[in-house]
């Protein structure tokens, strides 16, 4: 008996019991769709977390940060601790060949340091204000939308220039979403704690993939049915909450000024003898290649051990922990998803096996007739397996359709931080699972059917 005939017989058999077969398929449909939907949700989550990781500068970024607390065995050396200084930057630049873009940073916490930015009668509180080098652009994955980044000359001359995030612009000059026009504040002079700074550039509006899509959607809808402009517009509050949204909002609420400017204008009164406090908050750098991360860290360690006389008043931070955390979280979610889907598929498989057993005990006589007219044991075996497989594959196929609908409705009714993404791999895997379930579930009924003795089967009522 050729395969096509067998499949046709299987489909006819299923068609003859439409309702029963449909109910049986339901188990597989649920299994496959939950497998695909779960993997889509996890994929969406993973994408969101990776997005945040990239926004922080990626895995290659290494941060050396000042640490006030010395290790216990060095507590007595606390007063000799030099802190992170420019000399460390120069030492790293010349002493650690596996790293590049060594960039010193002085960071002021906007709220803690009571930094006020004013423009005419408007006030903005930045989350952070950084004094740094232009290299930070690459390290933190910043992109300038209008104007330019301050350059090395601005730094050398300690010019009063700044580059601001979009939220600062919104606070000082107005939000384009509310005023209806995009204000480019480049060239305007703002007061940072009373000192005039010229805005030379503004970053682009950083947002998560989801926010971007929502904006796009809102824009399209606005085009379709334009709302009358003017009047008081309701503030819809800040969007983009959640762990990955934080990174983007922090970046939108930051102000960058040249390091020298920071040192002279904001640190002068902080140090002893009315000299500028030379301590850096951190030194950021990039490892040339992620594969030599360990070696590069050792180089940094060696250089800083020398320049700090062995006093460990500094610490490393890489994004590895975050990356590992992401991996672990994703693995956990994926595991629980797979378990749920696997249970659904097993239940579906049991359903198929049950119905196939019922079906063959109804068809003992038919099997006897088929054997009497020349069907071999393997013909019967293949026929039953095929029927089971056809049920499972039809169920799997419908399950894929259902999963698309399911994921679509999840995104529509309960928008999450990250849009679920259905991957081809997940679909292929789920479909293969349904095929496997069909095969395994059909195995016992098929063996039972094929082992029937023709005479006993013919006598069966």
């Amino acid at each position, binding site marked *: 008996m050729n395969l096509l005939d067998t499949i046709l017989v299987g489909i006819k058999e299923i068609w003859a019991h439409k309702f029963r077969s449909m109910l049986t398929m339901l188990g597989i449909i649920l299994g496959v769709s939950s497998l695909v939907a779960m993997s889509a949700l996890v994929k969406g989550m993973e994408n969101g977390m990776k997005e945040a990781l990239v926004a922080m500068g990626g895995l290659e970024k290494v941060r050396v940060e000042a640490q006030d607390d010395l290790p216990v065995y060095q507590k007595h050396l606390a007063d000799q601790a030099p802190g992170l200084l420019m000399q460390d930057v120069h030492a790293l630049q010349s002493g650690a060949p596996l790293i590049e873009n060594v960039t010193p940073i002085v960071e002021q916490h906007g709220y803690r340091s009571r930094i006020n930015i004013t423009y005419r009668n408007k006030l903005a509180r930045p989350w952070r204000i950084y004094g740094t080098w232009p290299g930070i652009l690459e390290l933190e994955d910043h992109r300038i939308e209008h104007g330019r980044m301050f350059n090395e000359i601005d730094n050398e001359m300690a010019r009063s220039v700044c580059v601001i995030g979009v939220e600062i612009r919104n606070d000082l000059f107005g939000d384009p979403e509310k005023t209806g026009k995009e204000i480019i504040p480049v060239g305007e002079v703002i007061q940072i704690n009373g000192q005039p700074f010229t805005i030379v550039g503004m970053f682009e509006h950083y947002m998560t993939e989801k926010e971007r899509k929502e904006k796009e959607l809102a824009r399209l809808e606005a085009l379709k049915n334009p709302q009358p402009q003017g009047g008081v517009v309701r503030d819809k509050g800040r969007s983009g909450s959640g762990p990955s949204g934080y990174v983007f909002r922090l970046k939108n609420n930051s102000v960058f000024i040249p390091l020298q400017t920071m040192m002279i204008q904001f640190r002068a009164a902080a140090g002893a003898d009315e000299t500028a406090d030379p301590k850096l908050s951190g030194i950021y750098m990039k490892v040339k290649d992620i594969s030599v991360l360990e070696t590069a860290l050792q180089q940094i360690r060696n250089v800083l051990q020398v320049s700090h006389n062995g006093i460990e008043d500094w610490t490393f931070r890489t994004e590895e922990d975050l990356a590992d955390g992401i991996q672990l979280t994703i693995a956990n979610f994926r595991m629980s998803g797979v378990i749920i889907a696997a249970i659904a598929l097993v239940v579906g498989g049991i359903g198929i096996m049950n119905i196939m057993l019922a079906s063959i005990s109804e068809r003992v006589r038919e099997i006897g*007739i088929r*054997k009497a007219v020349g069907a071999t044991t393997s013909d019967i075996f293949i026929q039953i397996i095929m029927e089971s497989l056809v049920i499972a594959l039809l169920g799997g196929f419908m399950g894929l359709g259902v999963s698309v609908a399911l994921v679509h409705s999840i995104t529509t009714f309960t928008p999450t931080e990250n849009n679920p993404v259905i991957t081809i791999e997940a679909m292929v895997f789920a479909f293969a699972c349904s095929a496997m379930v069909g095969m395994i579930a059909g195995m016992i009924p098929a063996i039972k059917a094929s082992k029937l003795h023709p*005479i006993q089967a013919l006598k069966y009522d």
Partner: protein
Amino acid sequence: MALVELREIRKTYHLGGETIHALDGVTLDVQAGDFTSIIGPSGSGKSTLMHILGCLDSPTSGSMSLDGVNIHDATPRELAKIRGEKIGFVFQFFNLLPKLNVAQNVELPLIYQGISSRSRKEKSMHALKLVGLEDRAKHRPSQLSGGQQQRVAIARALVNDPRIIFADEPTGNLDSHTGEMILETFCKLHQEGRTIMLVTHDPEIAALTPQKIEIRDGKIALDVDAKLAGKESRFKLRGSPEPNP
């Protein structure tokens, strides 16, 4: 060499510790072209004999060949192949598949021989013509009368052009008039040169066949030679008392 040769065939069953000798040393030959009836009361072993002859069952001991092929040591797979290619069955309860239409039922033996769909259709139509049911090809078995169903079963038995046809009480489930028509069909097939073995408990039906074998307690009681029953006398014999030894 005979078409079917049975030598000392024994079949024993074990039922609850008791050993039953369904067949106890049966030796017989069936020549090509024979029309043989196997008669005997129920429990005599005639059905067991037919199952063994029809390669549905294997004997416990003894040797058997069909068309020159040894059957007694064939595997189930080989038996299935022989059933599909060399044997046609007609059963008392027709045994048609209710979900398939008449033509599909007739095609069934060909499916398992891997014959192409087009050639299957031709052969099944040809077989239906032989039993005069070509206009019922698209009907379901349930839409046919008992006699028509049995003729479909005969068409199914004929479709693979078998070397021998076995019929197990083919008229047992039909009224006498319809049964007569079925027997006529068998006679016609016999005249066309086919080999037929017919199991019955009815001596009147057995009287129609040129050869008769009577089974009693698993043994052959009587083997009537072909010459005893002339073809012309078949229908005259019907209804008249049969000398029964």
